[in-house]
């Protein structure tokens, strides 16, 4: 059962009227109990993909499946999915608690059967839950949104930028929460632009850029796939020009006082030797296999 596919994007494509393909043939699958991170720069098509997955946007072609059911707007299987797309939004003139109740009851549920204690524990709003939502900060709304998504003890969680508007402490709590629900067997698909956050929480990564799928895999697969190095030299401008023409180097960009170098075939030893032979003085060389580097390397490789 470990490899059971719970969320499946099957060649999802969305072309808007202006002819722009916001999402172009995206295919990926998320296994039960995984925490999958959907990564990509702004405009990559992450939110549109999530919207198609839960039936808010009709695909131009392709389908999405959750728990083995092809998703249509209002599909019954959505009762088993907790969702928060973009920022959490509510009826602003109603108290937080009443918003939760109406959300739950709108689909015919009995509020007494909702997992309210856990939801309120996550929201952490205390007495503020009785206040009108329009008095909430963005962070409070976001926490209430996550709580709303978890009201029904969902088997699947789809969250779009869930830590937007949260302070570092709240972000850590959300990460811990996602880990906890994942341990309980809940499958989580989240989009985020916070790569450090994704690296800490996700065991599976889907990278998108300009509507297309760039890479899928585990965090370690992705970081190993794109080796990179950070070097500090005495003449950054000359080193940049030289490295851009060096075989085995796919990208060079300034980073702080040094250069981040994407390697494809070249080793760090070769890199240092080449720089020295070119008359440059090398102060520092470090290996960099963080997700951020892998991610940026993937995007650079894609655009070149």
């Amino acid at each position, binding site marked *: 059962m470990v490899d059971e596919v719970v969320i499946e994007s099957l060649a999802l494509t969305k072309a808007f009227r202006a002819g722009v393909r916001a999402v172009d043939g995206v295919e990926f699958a998320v296994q039960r109990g995984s925490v999958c991170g959907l990564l990509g720069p702004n405009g990559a098509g992450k939110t549109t993909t999530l919207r198609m997955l839960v039936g808010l946007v009709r695909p131009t072609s392709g389908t999405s499946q959750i728990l083995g059911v092809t998703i249509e707007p209002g599909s019954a299987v959505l009762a088993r999915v907790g969702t928060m797309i973009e920022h959490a939004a509510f009826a602003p003139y109603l108290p937080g608690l009443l918003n939760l109740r109406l959300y739950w009851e709108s*689909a015919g549920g009995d509020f007494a059967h909702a997992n309210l204690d856990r939801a309120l524990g996550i929201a952490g709003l205390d007495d503020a839950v009785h206040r009108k939502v329009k008095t909430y900060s963005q962070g409070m709304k976001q926490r209430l949104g996550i709580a*709303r998504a978890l009201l029904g003890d969902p088997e699947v969680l789809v969250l779009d930028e869930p830590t937007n508007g949260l302070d570092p402490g709240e972000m850590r709590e959300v990460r811990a929460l996602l880990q906890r629900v994942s341990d309980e067997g809940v499958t989580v698909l989240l989009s985020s632009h916070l790569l450090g956050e994704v690296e800490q929480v996700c065991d599976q990564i889907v990278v998108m850029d300009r509507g297309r799928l760039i890479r899928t895999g585990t965090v370690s697969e992705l970081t190993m796939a794109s080796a990179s190095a950070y070097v500090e030299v005495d003449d950054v401008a000359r080193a940049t020009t030289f490295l851009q023409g060096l075989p085995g180097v796919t990208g060079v960009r300034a980073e702080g006082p040094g250069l981040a170098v994407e390697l494809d075939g070249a080793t760090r030893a070769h890199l240092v030797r080449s720089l020295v032979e070119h008359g440059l003085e090398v102060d520092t060389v470090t290996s960099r296999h963080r997700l951020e580097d892998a991610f940026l390397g993937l995007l650079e490789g894609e655009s070149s």
Partner: protein
Amino acid sequence: MLALFRTEMVKQWRRPRTYVALGLLVLIPLIFTIALKSNPPQPRFAGAEDAYPFLATKTGLYLGVAALFFLSRFLLVVVLAVFAGDAIASEANWGNLRAILVRPISRRRLLTAKLASASVLAVVAAIIVPLNGLILGGIAFGWHPLDTPFAPTQSVSHILGSLAVASAYVLWSLTPVIAFAFMASTMTDTPAGAIFAAVGLYIVSQVLDGINSLGSIRSALPTHHFDAWTELFIRGSGPTSEMAHGALLVIPYTVVFLAIGWWWFGRKDILS
């Protein structure tokens, strides 16, 4: 379906704008009553706008008629457009529409519940207008049969019955406005846009209806027979054939506007 309707009604009743809109329908007849009481009009019968205020001072029952006449010409139209135009667009504007539609709730069910709750408020508004007028008129001038040389003699029960028919007719005549506002509400994330569009439809129809050279085209305009109910009081008769025409005329408008709204929303990508 019932659960969804119930939640929509809770949302509507908890909205401050509901009370502001209904409050205006109560407040303006109150001001009108005070004005009539402190400065009674002279008998002038150039039209209903002159006759009803004068007759209201003879029997408070006619204050209900006057309230219906004056408010239905614009304020009631705006209020009904607010209830219907706000229904979907305000949820989209807050971003709450996507939270509703990621639940196992079909768009058709949501529209039905939203339209039903807006319709309930429309009925409440259409009842408040004459009822408030009757109450204020009773307090200020008392309820009497109408017996003046200036109008047909009418009993209390006749006036009350005619006012009930007239109120129902006014509400029914405004269903194209409700339907248009609701249709526009499915197409925009800006509630004001949907409301203005519906009020605009009403105004354009009224303006066109005032252009005599348009000839028989005018009789196809949704507001052409809007004032037909005044015959109930001017002649003291029962419902007229013009009212029947008016009641039938609005049906295709309402059906077409709602059908477009349903079709549009069913295909719409929820992006807000």
